[in-house]
């Protein structure tokens, strides 16, 4: 176990190193994401601004909570873009082309390598901007922060980032079972788009089942916000952890069974 960890850390270091070198070969490729991702972020903020300029409250959340919510969702999304999105996103293409063969024949977890081989330093400014929004929300709310509050919040951001990752892997692992899966990615985009604008507390009835359990995008930013504003009870915390554990198991099963289904495209 210790050896495996050490090996993974060494491979991770090399993957980071290779990615940085590869990005810096083409200066435009290296610098463009800083501007493109930043622009997209501002467009999103403008959309939020337009939606919430005439809305005073959603459920029992006011303007301050909503700003923290938007910042938190952006933060989770930015962590996703920086660390694993561009790697995980290549899974369907690698399955279709048979390039996955080269990952399967190496003595390292193929998912580990795919996850970390395309980190995106160009998305780091989004993390900083998201933290800025969260800070602004906390000021608007006149919220006093404690060390345990911040650690608790970071813990929830971390495990919700893992949940986000698991959802991405599950959806892209469908390519191991079915040939065409573009619609699933569209469904994912639509859900993220909706849940970025509406916090989980706004969902009731069957919508709550969908966005809290089936496609749990509704809890991803909601739970960290509930933690930082001091409105998270033990039941909600247990539920959140339960969902992450459930999806961790599901991801492992879907991925491993998918590899058994892998036919490998003809040479």
């Amino acid at each position, binding site marked *: 176990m210790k050896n495996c960890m050490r*090996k993974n850390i*060494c*491979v991770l*270091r*090399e*993957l980071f*190193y*290779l990615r940085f*070198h*590869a990005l810096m*070969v*083409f200066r435009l490729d290296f610098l463009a994401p800083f501007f493109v991702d930043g622009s997209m972020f501002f467009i999103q903020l403008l959309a939020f601004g337009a939606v919430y300029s005439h809305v005073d409250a959603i459920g029992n959340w006011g303007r301050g909570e909503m700003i923290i919510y938007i910042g938190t969702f952006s933060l989770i999304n930015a962590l996703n873009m920086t660390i694993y999105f561009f790697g995980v996103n290549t899974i369907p293409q690698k399955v279709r082309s*048979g*390039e996955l*063969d*080269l990952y*399967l*024949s*190496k*003595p*390292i977890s193929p998912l580990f390598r795919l996850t970390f081989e395309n980190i995106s330093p160009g998305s780091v400014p989004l993390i900083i901007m998201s933290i800025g929004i969260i800070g602004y929300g906390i000021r608007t709310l006149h919220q006093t922060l404690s060390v345990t509050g911040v650690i608790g919040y970071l813990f929830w951001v971390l495990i919700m980032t893992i949940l986000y990752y698991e959802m991405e892997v599950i959806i892209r692992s469908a390519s191991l079972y079915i040939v065409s899966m573009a619609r699933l990615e569209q469904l994912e985009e639509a859900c993220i788009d909706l849940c970025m604008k509406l916090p989980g507390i706004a969902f009731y009835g069957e919508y709550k089942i969908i966005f809290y359990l089936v496609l749990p995008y509704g809890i991803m930013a909601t739970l960290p916000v509930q933690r930082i504003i001091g409105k998270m009870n033990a039941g909600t915390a247990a539920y959140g952890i339960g969902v992450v554990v459930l999806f961790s198991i599901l991801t492992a099963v879907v991925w491993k069974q998918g*590899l*058994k289904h*892998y*036919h*490998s495209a*003809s*040479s």
Partner: protein
Amino acid sequence: MNDVIIHTSNLAKRYQRYRKREGIRNSIASLWKRDYEEKIAVDHIDLTVKKGELIGLIGPNGAGKTTLIKMLTGIIAPTEGSIDVMGYYPNDMKNEFKKQYAVVMGQKSQLFFELTVNDTLRLFKEIYEIPEKDFQKNKQYFVELFGVRDLMDVQVRTLSLGERMKMELIVSLIHNPKILFLDEPTIGLDAVASKQIRKFLMEINEKNGTTIILTSHYMEDIKALCERSIVINHGVKIYDGATDKLFDRFQKNKRITVTFDDPTEDMALQTENVSILENEAHKKIYQVPKQLVKELLAELMKYEPKDIVVEEEEIGVVVERIYREGGKFHG
């Protein structure tokens, strides 16, 4: 028996594929009901490979060679039969197993195109957990063997196809694998590059004792490298034995292409059993039994040709002949 490194028994791989009928009506109907047919890629193959062997897997496109290699490396799971490679069931995908083999696919590159080979090697060093001292020693050995010292620090995308294949071999061999699977390693290479690659493979097999299993469309690869050949057609093993015997018995003809500066018509050739495949004023292609090549060449020289090329029969023709004449033949 201890020398056996690969053993398969009744190994089979079947796929289901959707058969789509023509027309919009059938497309609509296929939304509810589909016709699937079974495609047998590998059909109950028994195979035993000993340590240090260099074996050629021959067969036309779609014969099942690549599928067999993918099962031996664990990339895909067999549908039926037993498979043992170095004591492992490959599709368990154990890292200890993967550390002991390497696979090179002629049409899939494991190199980072925008980076240098040294960069890829550093990653492979970590993936295979090679100690620094061994890594440097192996790298030095292969760099000298392949004569690529000057190319280690240039972008892979700027390398020629032949140079790139040498690099593919270096990164595959850096961890000293016990078995090297090569799927069409010389595809697209010119004669000089192919010859170089063959020479290196021979050296690696002889000096390091690496077991090599090679698929190729090119007769030259198989003839030059492999003492033992296995011919596969439609997933069935139709020959397993000495390469010499295979070609002596089934490669009966040669193909001779002759070109002329001046238009040359009516050539009244005396050599028997010559068939003409192409007949143009400046170029003619003949098929002639192997034993009569010398006679035909002597005759052709009288017409002062510009160039003469003598080639082996294509692999597909040989496979077809084995199938027709031999059924299951073991040399």
